[in-house]
């Protein structure tokens, strides 16, 4: 961690000296098990940058902020953050011209629950690409052990899939009825980039797709529509689940969709460059038809 922190400070200093307007990284939170995003514009503040065990926050989402438009930005991105960044580029949300990216070989981070118990972060256990290999500058040790195999990372999803339809529905009903529709998950997601969200209700051009009534059906619509809107894009950074005040396992929904995309459409779970768009945007003459030719039987 110290090596990463030192390298971060060094690069941030050089960046500011070479004309970057702002550096986005992490700094310590109030407690030792916290980490916060840091926005550095002054050389004097560089020492506050710190990468610790809890620097989970996916910073790429901040690139969407209007305040940063036309600014020259330096940003630190872990493996998962970098994938999110690439999605933003694919969907024309950021202009790579103005952005200097430094990669972080992420050693795997920790999370702490309300009872104070610390464990390896769930998302890190699923992660297959902790190092943003493509980047020119990568800080930290590149040889990072992957915690779980590609198959094993879908354990949760497979467990749910093995349940009967009714049982699955009951499980989700139970989870989703807790939702208070605070929209924190949507607001924090680096890929929820729509200027106006069609499922927000009330203030949008939603034509009443969903209303704000506190009813299970409306909550359910919200989560299913959001899941489909993330199909082929969600990078499993875990931000949504992290911020949910009522602990809804949102990652599980997204993981299920990712699993299906890979299996049914024979596509990468996440489109990794703009030549492959998500399954809902891509048309190929040899599209596998789930259930008939190609494409493994599933769902």
């Amino acid at each position, binding site marked *: 961690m110290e090596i990463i922190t030192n390298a971060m400070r060094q690069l941030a200093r050089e960046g500011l000296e070479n004309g970057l307007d702002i550096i986005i990284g992490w700094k310590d939170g109030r407690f030792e098990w916290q980490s916060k995003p840091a926005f550095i514009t002054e050389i004097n503040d560089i020492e506050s940058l710190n990468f610790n065990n809890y620097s989970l926050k996916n910073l790429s989402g901040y690139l969407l902020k*209007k305040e940063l*438009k036309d600014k020259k930005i330096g940003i630190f991105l872990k493996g998962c953050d970098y994938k999110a960044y690439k999605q933003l580029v694919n*969907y*024309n*949300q950021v202009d790579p011209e103005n952005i200097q990216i430094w990669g972080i070989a992420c050693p795997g981070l920790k999370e702490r629950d309300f009872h104070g118990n610390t464990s390896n972060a769930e998302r890190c256990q699923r992660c297959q690409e902790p190092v943003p290999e493509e980047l020119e500058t990568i800080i930290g040790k590149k040889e990072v052990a992957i915690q779980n195999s590609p198959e094993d990372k879908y354990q949760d999803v497979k467990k749910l899939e093995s349940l009967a339809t009714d049982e699955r529905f009951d499980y989700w009903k139970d989870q989703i009825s807790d939702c208070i529709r605070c929209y924190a998950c949507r607001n924090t997601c680096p890929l929820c*980039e*729509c*200027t*106006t*969200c*069609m499922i927000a209700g009330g203030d*949008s*051009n*939603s*034509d*009443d*797709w969903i209303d704000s009534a506190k009813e299970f059906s409306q909550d359910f619509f919200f989560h299913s529509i959001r899941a489909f*809107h993330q199909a082929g894009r969600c990078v499993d950074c875990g931000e949504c689940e992290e911020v949910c005040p009522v602990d809804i396992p949102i990652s599980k929904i997204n993981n299920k969709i990712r699993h299906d995309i890979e299996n049914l459409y024979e596509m990468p779970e996440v489109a990794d460059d703009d030549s492959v*768009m998500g399954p*809902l*945007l*891509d*048309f190929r003459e040899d599209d596998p038809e789930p259930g008939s030719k190609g494409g493994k039987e599933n769902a």
Partner: protein
Amino acid sequence: MSKIGVFICWCGSNISETVDIEKTKAALEGLPALDYIEDYQYLCSEIGQKKIADAIKNKNLSGVVVASCSPRMHEDTFRNAAEDAGLNPYLLEIANIREHCSWVHSNKEKATEKAVALIRAAINKVKHNQPLTPGSIPVNKRALVIGGGIAGIQSAIDIAEAGYQVDIVERTPSIGGKMAQIDKTFPTLDCSACILTPKMVEASRHENIQLHTYSEVARVDGYVGNFDVEIKKKPRSIDEDKCTGCGICLEKCPGKAPSEFEEGLNERNAIYTPFPQAVPNIPTIDRDNCIKFEKDKCGLCARVCPTDAINFNQEENIIEEKYGIIITATGYQLTDPDQFGEYHYNHPDVITGMEFERIINAAGPTEGKLQRPSNSEKPERVVFVQCVGSRDKARGHSHCSKICCMYTAKQAMLIREKYPETEVYVFYIDIRTAGKGFEEFQRRAQEDYGVNYVKGMVGKVFPGKDKLRVEAIDAMTGEFLELNSDLVILSPAAIPDQKAGDVSRQLGISQGASGFFTEAHPKLKPVETQTAGIFLAGACQGPKDIPETVAQASGAAAKAIGILSKDSLVNNPCVAEVNQAECSSCFSCKEVCPYSAIEKDEAEKHGMVARVNEALCQGCGACTVTCRSSTINLKGFSNKEILSEVDAICL
């Protein structure tokens, strides 16, 4: 306040037999949204239309629902009636209670229930309908014809005669196409070149026609009335303005290659004109076989050329032009018989029908003398094999190539006429001669010229020491036949030109299972494609003989002239529309739009946002369901309108 009127049509008994009209009316009458309701036996009749128009005027209706047949049938009829009565035609909706209801259900009670639901949905929708006005798009009065065979030439001449400019783009160095290679035409037996050459000359001399030979279409953008096309002129290595076509260069050239025009039966030089009557009469250097280009030696042609027209440094040239319409006339080619090993096409004495045309032609490689290519001797017996790859679903193509039965009859007759002592056999599956004078012609081959027709397929051709051994079954007697032959002539399947796939992608038109271009409607729109402003002429649409090709080419020209004669076209107002203030610039819509109708627009608010090119948009709606933020909407089918229909049914 909206005032909605509903008109229920009985469609004679088509609807009223299965849908209880009285009950339907009763069920609707209580609806608060409804102000007027009426039923009639035939709403599409003049009286029916008048009923609608009168009610609009007298009751001051602001929206109308017609419960009747499919909108494909009479939407225009009823919209016109509404417009005549002073209502914007897009404030009229059709509830399809025939195709979606009475025709597909038999239970009267349930069908009636469904009719009520469909009408309620339409009422709910029409309340949200907005008046729409079609826009107009200007028309470039110039036509592009892709392909310079007889189809392309005929279309171009017809359009040029109507007073419009036409460009022909032809891939090879000369126009003329396959027809130029053919010796005689059926059923009249006139000389193909004699009737084609004047047309070629007419095309080249016509003041409204511009020829781009040795050229290809590189890029097509745009839409009906406004196609933007890039034409790539390949370097001929000859200065066309200086060359007089004297042909001196052709004589000295030591570079050699098989002649395409002679079907590879003899050679041409590296600098060549494909055939003596070629138009334009300007040679082309085939750079792949020219010694100057291969080894930087020779250069003889340049030395002998009296006008200094040879230019080895000529470069590819791209020209850009705008067109109002495009006609595709890319023609056909013959399938390669090599894939049917049993016929031994690799043997010199096994040839195709097209090779025979060259052999029998007085200007061809043998000066018209019938010879075996292997030893230049006169054959004593000739065997024709029909349907090589045609009507052969398993190994070849399922379609019938249509022209082979007739050209084989013609070729057989030509042989018997010139060399009556030659024995001629034709092996066929069945004979197809549907055309004016065709059956009579084919019978003459059998009855007057003594050609032996054997119903049955040839199983194998074995190259023997001197002769070819042909094995076949006579399907009439079941007998196994074995005969020696000196020459075997195959009729390979006619398939689309090799570049048809590229053209289809460039133009956004579709190909059927056999690869030929698909017409918009097989009966009523045979020369149109699904893409407005693009038409089909000749064998690119399917195998055709010359008269049919010419007829279709003129048909395509007539359709084209119909567009070119207008100053502007009315477009469908049901197009997509972006709320730019809310667009998040993800351009997912651009990705899915099959008509490339979405463009990037410089926005005041933030960077680029999506904009719909209304002239290109076909109103398919793909973009509207793709847009995550519901920012893009289809006019006439907005989310609001659709959702209120759903509400009417579900809530």
